[in-house]
């Protein structure tokens, strides 16, 4: 009886420690040296990827976030995308392609002196919305733009 109680206590302690470790990972202040967010990149939807990346999928559509991308991309393997945010204190930006098998293309951690601006080139499997999510002052802002793809970039 008593030994069972001991085992039970040990069990709960172990679970407690794991819980704390997971919790602290999610709640830790943003570190510039963060590890590569594998679960976010493997997520199959924008919502799941956002939750894995920043712990929340509550975004607010904002006119201050701008996504610059072509209306029609002839080649889905190379789609230039520029995200700019007219917001102060931008901590992180992420670019998603809603209909890619794995929507998260990239995530950017910005230092205090970096401006809310990132430009790159992404692959798109088919016509889809490109979604930019900007984290500033602990809040998430988003903007989207549709890009029509005539030749997909995931075939080869």
């Amino acid at each position, binding site marked *: 009886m008593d030994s069972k109680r001991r085992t039970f206590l040990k069990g709960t302690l172990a679970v407690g420690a794991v819980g704390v470790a997971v919790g602290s990972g999610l709640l830790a202040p943003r570190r510039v040296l963060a590890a590569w967010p594998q679960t976010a990149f493997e997520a199959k939807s924008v919502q799941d990827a956002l939750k894995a990346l920043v712990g929340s999928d509550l975004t607010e559509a904002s006119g201050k976030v701008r996504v610059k991308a072509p209306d029609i991309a002839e080649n889905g393997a190379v789609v230039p995308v520029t995200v700019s945010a007219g917001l102060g204190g931008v901590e992180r930006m992420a670019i998603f392609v809603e209909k890619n098998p794995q929507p998260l293309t990239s995530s*950017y951690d910005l230092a205090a002196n970096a401006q809310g601006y990132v430009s790159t080139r992404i692959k798109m499997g088919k016509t889809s919305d490109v979604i930019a999510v900007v984290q500033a002052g602990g809040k998430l802002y988003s903007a989207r733009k549709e890009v029509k793809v005539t030749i997909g970039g*995931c075939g080869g």
Partner: protein
Amino acid sequence: MASTIKIRATERNGVVVVKALMAHPMETGQRKDKKTGKKIPAHYIQEVKAEHEGKEVLTAHWGPAISKNPYISFKFTGGKKGEKVKLSWKDNKGQSDSREAVIR
């Protein structure tokens, strides 16, 4: 081996604009070799780091959906002409490269 990175940093009105190109296949792991029918293993850059005079400005985490021979551009304040910007990348196979440029 020649550097895989081309980088240019220019300062205007207190804002430094950095543009960089990296030579990398950015293989997704989804593509098949047309001759053998086997999948080509994934090989892509996962992390790009930019430093200004040793201080980190930007860290990018990339998935395989970034185009082949990737391009990145970003802006930051507080940099002067003659100072250094360093860019480095690491891929999923543990390869890496880095290069410094002088702000012009």
